[in-house]
Structure formats: C-alpha cells, structure tokens
C-alpha cells in the first residue's frame, strides 16, 4: 500500500513537471523583450548589489523592454548547471553570471550567446571560444598601500592579517613588495581559523602603526576582534571592502559592488548594440570608493580630514557607512 502511494506521488510529480514547462510559451503576440539571464552562485548581499546595479542601469539605458531571469544556485554546482541549461532552453539573449566560477561554467556550456562575466577574472585566452566579456573587480594591494602611504606619510610599520586561503598568498607578496617601495615594512600574520584571530590580535608587535586586512573572507568575518585591538592601541584598521567597514574597520579603499553591476550593464549595452563580446577589453574597476566608519575612526584615534583630503586628490568617492545596518548597502 505504501509503495503504491509512493509510486502514485512520483508519477503525479513527473506529470506536473512535464506540464510545468508549457507555461513559458504563453504570449507570442507581444513584442519579444530582450531576455537576460543572471546567475547568482550563492546568497550574499554583495551579489544582490551587483545584480541591482546591473538591472537598474540596463533598464534605464536601454529603450527596449527587458526581462531579467535571476537564477540563484544556493551554492549547489549541480543546481547551477541545471539553471544554465534551463536559461538555454528559454532562449536567453545574454547571460550575466556573477563571480569567476559561474562565468567559467556558463562559458563552457554556452557558445552561441554573449556572456558578461561580472566580478570575474579569467585569462584572456579563455575568451576566444565563447562570446565572453568580463568585468574584473579586483583592486591591487599596491593601490591600497599607496593610498595608506599618502594619508600617513610617516608610518613605517604595518601588520597585514590574512588567512591561509590560496587566493591570498600572491596578494600578500604584492603588498609586502609595494610596502618596500614606499618605505613601509609590512609584517604578515596568517590565521588558519577564526579563533586564531584573537591570539594574533593580542600579540601584535608594539611597534605596529596600523592593521591592514585585504579582501579576505575569513579575516573579514572576524573583523570586530581586530577593531577592538585597533581601538585599544589607537592605530587605524584598514580594509578593502565595505562590509568590513560596517563591522568596525576604520576605512577601506574598495569597489562599490553596485558599481560592478553598472560597469557590467554598460558592457551588455555595447553587446546588445552589436559589438562582438570577445572584442570588448576586460573592464577594470577604475571608480574606486573610500568607505569610512566615523565611529570606528574616532575610537581608533584617527583623523577623518586626512583621509578625505587624499580621497579627493585621487578622485575616490567617499562613502560613509557608519550607521548602515550590516548587509544593507544602498
């Protein structure tokens, strides 16, 4: 009896799924809107910001109707693959995967439609086979070190806290090298797990004149620990993304996630107007922002004016995130 029930439920489910795909062929007479598929690999406020920037810019700039299909893969690679296949079946005109891994997957599966990889970094050689354009969001540690040096020309000792994530190693090397050219000795401290952060924060060299954190997911998730230390020692805590500033870092030089979406939308416009995707050079984020947390800066005994002065000199936009709730950056 139970087995019959199971079979029945299965069969009805199969029937339902078979009927389910008929609903997509509803309106043929209306002018067909441009279909754009956005692939979000995992739930994260930053991903939503990129999506919002992309959708808003494209809707404002293009005069044609646009339909966005947003696919959220919830960190499941199999699901993500199914979603790309489904977008393919729907006859999507342009794909906008967010982050490197979904861009790779889309590029491997889709060859006959343009793809705009948002916040994705891939070698140029990979762009030949598919119609792939890229918006690269990485900012270099050199830019950050130079900015720090401009604000604090007298500082010679910085501590860089980073995790054992493989992505970080080359960036740490670059930061040290960049420090040497401007006379800052970068003291590196690695953590392998979040609890390490506390002991590292307690054992900082007394000579250190500031704590630096790069775009490093593990360290950023424990930024509050470092913020306390920075306040006790009256030294600045500097980071490279807006989220860490909301959570207690003094200031950061970084990219507004929304802006990545905006840049991506501009690339998409070019493609939809007929420029072959592969001929568009990879977009680097030139419009950098300085995120500040005035409360944290005061606690760390830092002068906002110096930061604002240097930001204005380099044409960086100042974004005050002091009282914004975490994860909600409009």
């Amino acid at each position, binding site marked *: 009896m139970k087995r019959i029930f199971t079979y029945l439920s299965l069969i009805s489910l199969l029937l339902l799924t078979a009927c*389910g795909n008929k609903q997509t062929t509803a309106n043929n007479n209306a002018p067909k809107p441009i279909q754009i598929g956005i692939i979000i690999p995992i739930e994260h406020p930053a991903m939503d910001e990129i999506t919002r920037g992309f959708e808003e810019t494209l809707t404002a700039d293009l005069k044609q109707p646009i339909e966005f299909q947003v696919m959220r*893969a919830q960190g499941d690679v*199999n699901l993500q693959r*199914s979603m790309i296949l489904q977008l393919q079946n729907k006859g999507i005109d342009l794909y906008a995967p967010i982050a490197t891994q979904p861009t*790779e997957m889309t590029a491997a599966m889709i060859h006959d439609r343009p793809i705009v990889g948002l916040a994705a970094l*891939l070698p140029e050689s990979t762009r030949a*086979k598919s119609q792939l354009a890229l918006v690269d969001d990485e900012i270099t540690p050199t830019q950050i070190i130079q900015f720090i040096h401009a604000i604090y020309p007298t500082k010679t000792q910085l501590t860089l806290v980073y995790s054992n994530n493989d*992505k970080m190693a080359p960036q740490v090397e670059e930061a040290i090298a960049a420090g040497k050219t401007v006379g800052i000795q970068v003291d590196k401290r690695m953590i392998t797990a979040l609890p390490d952060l506390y002991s590292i924060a307690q054992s900082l060299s007394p000579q250190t004149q500031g704590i630096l954190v790069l775009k490093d997911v593990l360290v950023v998730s424990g930024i509050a620990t470092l913020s306390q230390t920075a306040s006790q020692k009256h030294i600045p805590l500097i980071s490279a993304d807006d989220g860490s500033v909301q959570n207690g870092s003094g200031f950061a030089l970084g990219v507004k996630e929304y802006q990545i979406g905006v840049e991506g939308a501009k690339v998409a416009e070019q493609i939809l107007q007929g420029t072959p995707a592969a001929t568009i050079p990879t977009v680097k984020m030139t419009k950098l922002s300085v995120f500040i947390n005035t409360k944290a800066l005061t606690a760390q005994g830092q002068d906002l004016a110096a930061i604002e002065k240097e930001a204005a000199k380099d044409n960086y936009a100042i974004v005050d995130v002091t009282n914004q709730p975490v994860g909600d950056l409009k």
Partner: protein
Amino acid sequence: MIALLLATLTQSLTLIPLALGINLSYTLLRATDMTIDGSFVLGAGVFAQLVTMGISPILAFLVALSCGAIAGAFTAFLQNGGKVDPLLAGILTSFILYSVNMAVMGRPNINLLSTPTLFSGAFAHSTTLGWFSVALVVGLLVVAFYILLQSRLGLCLRAFGDNPALLSRQGYNVTYLRVTGFSLNNLLAAASGAITAQIIGYADIGMGVGMTLIGIGAIVLGQHLILPFIKKHYLRAGSELLAAFIGIALYFFILNGLLRFNINPIYLKLLLGVLLALFLRTATRKVSLS
C-alpha cells in the same frame, strides 16, 4: 519536454561513473564512503592541473583515475583491518583530501575553457559529437564495471560486504579486497570528477560537496523502483546498474522539472530532500522485513 529530457541526460551522463562507484561502496561493500566527496574533486583537480601543464588529456585522465584509487586505498588503510568504521575513515580522508586537492591544484579554481581536453575536439566539431564522445568514455567505464561485477572479484567484493568475517575464515585476503573495493569506487568518483570538470569548464575546490549524498539518494531511489521487479538473482548486477542509471536520471529529471516552476531554490532542496527521505523510508522498511 525534449529539452527537459536532454538536460537530464547530459547532466546524468557525467555523474554515471560516480553512481557506479557509490553502487560499489553502498550496495556491494555496504559502506557509506564519504571519501567520494574528496576524490571527485581530486580527479577533477589532477586532470585540470595536468592538462594545464600541457600533458596529453588521455594520460592526465588516467593519472586522475589512479589518484582517486590511491585516495580510496588510503581510506581502506585507515579502517585498520575493519576496526575503524568506514564512514569515519571516509570523512577523515575527505578532510585530508581538501588540503591535498588545494596543494595539487595550487589555487581554488583551475579553468579549462581554452585547454584541450578529452572532449574539446569533438565539441568544437559539433555538440552532438561532443556528447557522443562523453557517452563513449562513460560507456567504456560502464562496460568495464559490468564485467567487474560479473567477475570473480565482483563476487568476492559482494561477499565482503555481506560477511567479511566468514570470507576471512574461508581463506580470502579481506584486506586486499577492502583496498580493491575502496580504490575502485574512488577511481570511478575521480573519473566522474575529471569528466565533469571538462564539461563545466573548470575544476573547483568546492565542487564535490554533497556528491556522496546525492549519489546514495539516487541509487536508493533507483533500486527501490527497479529491484522489486527483478526476481531472478542472476540479473542482479545488471539491474543494479540500471537502478543507478534510473536513480541518477530521475534525480536530475525532478531537479530540472521543479526548476521550471520557478520555485525558490531554498524550497527546491527541501522538496528534493523530502522526496528522497520518503523513498529512503520505504526502502529501509523493505530491508528490515527481509
């Protein structure tokens, strides 16, 4: 409907070797081998790293399979002659494999978009030929696996899962069988990983998460649907293969089908999970009766 079936077929195809591997560990050896989560990535990572270095895809594929087998042998070794639970040994190996995979790959993600792979030539010609070449490689693995199941070794592995103590008292070397069994199932998982990496265009450190559970779910589902109709026990090996195919295909059919309803993926996993739990419940009831 045809699009749905095609999506199901192409997605299932790359995971069939994995399903066979899980069939071997779960059905024959009667062990839940979590190593598969790690050896899937190991296969993908080794393959991607080697072809990026310019080594021929065929050689890279074979090396990737061997690395999977070594990972399995390590899990067998950790079981210390049956004194440590295979589940624990597998989790431990897969834990260790995370670091190993990272070391092998050198970075969390290797992209294969512009690298020649086993199938890149065929896909450049036409998509149909591409999938045909994938089916050929998977088919070869399936045939090899079927021959193995029907062989003396296959019988011994099944006997090992049934009653290792008796097998040992009958004079068989159970340590050898344990190593062979776990090596083979992880070899198949690594094969699946390497094939998947070529299809999705990259090897990623996180691509193996949950693969074992999907595989076991699919196999239980397939067996529950197929085995009640198989009365002749000499058809067992064949029907187990069929159950693996049907299970994995059904999993992706339902996944792709549910996606078409625009269901929030959060509930999608819940629905899939509930469905699998339902099948597992009825399947375990059947076992406890016999």
